């Protein structure tokens, strides 16, 4: 775990960025120096921001058409043949449609394939629950050999893509298109299974990843105004989870709140709770999509309605502090 960031940039630079751009730029830079890098997609050149890659490396873009099971299998074969495939598709179809291929061809076979789920969570908003990917942590984190990573901003996205290219094995990178502010320092290096301490505090710990990290950081600021000092952890890696940071948080702050753009069943909150229950039981609150198919609305609107505005997160954390022994 890193030292706390002295000045999280959130409050200084409220500009929001689409992490897909950082993904695309990084992939193109990697492809320029490593001729084995290939992108595999399912008629998703635009939505995966692979237009630039297609222009620069047309022969290295493998578009199988609208056929996700085939896409993942092809990725496994490309890896077997010595290529370095980044398989890019809407997270809902990549994980939901091709889950058995992910299990058998990628995870079980330990194929060196980077699965990149785009527009995860509820990023597709009004397109509805078929297009929401709020089950993907649950589906993927039970698979051996498959690190599961959800970066919080464009800096961590670029760092995680670079890490993935250098890692000898499969992984699932869960990206969004919902705008997020810069949180991690420029030049940040991604470390698998290591949480980032974004704020020090002793009264309660807030843990999130992806699109929720900036929301919990803002909630921590609101809590401070109420005299509650919250520790804030960005936990991009859902598997292997940072047990050390979670156990320390439980022992040192006595209460843990998690927030995620995912079902409350089986995701980050569940992964944290598994560690807490086994090693250091303390009161917990898991925020997320409450086990329903969401109604019509944008991701931001739905996150707000499901109790994940910064003030609502702060209220939930304050209530949790009351439950401490």
């Amino acid at each position, binding site marked *: 775990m890193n030292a706390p960031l002295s000045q999280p940039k959130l409050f200084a630079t409220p500009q929001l960025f689409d992490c897909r751009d950082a993904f695309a730029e990084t992939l193109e830079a990697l492809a320029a120096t490593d001729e084995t890098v290939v992108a595999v997609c399912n008629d998703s050149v635009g939505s995966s921001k692979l237009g630039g890659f297609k222009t620069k490396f047309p022969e290295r873009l493998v578009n199988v058409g609208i056929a996700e099971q085939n896409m993942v299998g092809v990725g496994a074969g490309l890896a077997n043949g010595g290529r370095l495939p980044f398989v890019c598709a809407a997270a809902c179809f990549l994980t939901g449609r091709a889950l058995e291929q992910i299990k058998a061809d990628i995870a079980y076979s330990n194929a060196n394939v980077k699965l990149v789920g785009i527009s995860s969570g509820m990023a597709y908003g009004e397109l509805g629950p*078929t*297009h929401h990917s709020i089950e993907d942590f649950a589906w993927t984190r039970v698979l051996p050999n498959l690190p599961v990573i959800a970066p919080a901003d464009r800096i961590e996205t670029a760092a995680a893509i670079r890490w993935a290219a250098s890692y000898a094995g499969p992984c699932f990178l869960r990206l969004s298109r919902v705008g997020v502010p810069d949180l991690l320092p420029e030049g940040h290096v991604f470390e698998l299974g290591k949480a980032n301490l974004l704020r020090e505090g002793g009264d309660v710990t807030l843990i999130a990843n992806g699109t929720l990290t900036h929301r919990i950081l803002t909630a921590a600021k609101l809590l401070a105004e109420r005299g509650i000092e919250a520790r804030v952890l960005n936990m991009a890696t859902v598997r292997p989870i940072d047990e050390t940071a979670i156990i320390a948080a439980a022992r040192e702050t006595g209460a843990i709140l998690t927030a995620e753009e995912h079902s409350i069943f089986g995701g980050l909150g569940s992964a944290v709770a598994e560690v807490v229950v086994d090693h250091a039981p303390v009161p917990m609150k898991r925020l997320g999509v409450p086990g329903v198919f969401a109604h019509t609305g944008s991701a931001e609107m739905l996150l707000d309605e499901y109790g994940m505005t910064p003030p609502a997160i702060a209220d939930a954390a304050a209530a949790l502090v009351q439950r401490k022994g």
Partner: protein
Amino acid sequence: MEINELERMARAIRRRDLEAVYAAGAGHIGGEMSVIDILTALYFRVLKVYPDQPKHPGRDRFVLSKGHTACALYVTLAKRGFLPEEEIATFLAPHSRLNGHPNCNKVPGVETNTGPLGHGLPVAIGMAKAAKLSGAGYHTYVVTGDGEMQEGSNWEAIMAAAQFGLDNLTLVIDHNRFQQGASLADTNGLAPLRPRLEAFGWEVAEINGNAMAEVVPALEHRASRPYCIVAHTNKGHGISFMQDRVDWHHKVPNKDQYEIALAELSEAL
């Protein structure tokens, strides 16, 4: 309805669809324009449906497998009396039951939820097989996109339909030659579709899917085997600048484009 009335209805549906997509600032207008003649012929001439009793057991079944063109289905269902026409104004609005893909638990007349491509045909085969088992006389229709036919699930279903001898099933492929990011030919070309379906034991007809006089008899035809209509259509049909341009898969017209499109569709009314 007679052919000329159906043509008028199709144009009215196109107009309302354009208005709804423009107002919502999102939608899949290209594939909506290509499929509207087929939807109109189905709902205003061919399908035995009961808007006041959407779950009538004897109703013909219709599945819009290319669920991203939901708005066209909503407008057609509203014109046919399944839901209030005013409700179209809520398309994609917060808490509306009319989201970007049809929901059978919320919208009367929708039989099954679609959105992920390659789901409608297997479900339609189950519906047709159920009619065989129960002796029900309803017919099952399903419309897929042509890009959608790249999904392997469709070909598993095509084999099953032939094996089950489903003469009570009609598959319409909206063959507009474009998918999301490019033409089929530049992605994963499936043409010609006819010999492929025939090789799997289906009877196949090829028609101009934007010509009502060809659409109606093709949909009314009954075969002795599973039956597929390869409907040659234009993505963006009816709006000159959208026709056969891939970016209109899900682009939204700006104000000027909207007015030109509205004028073109109104002129034809």
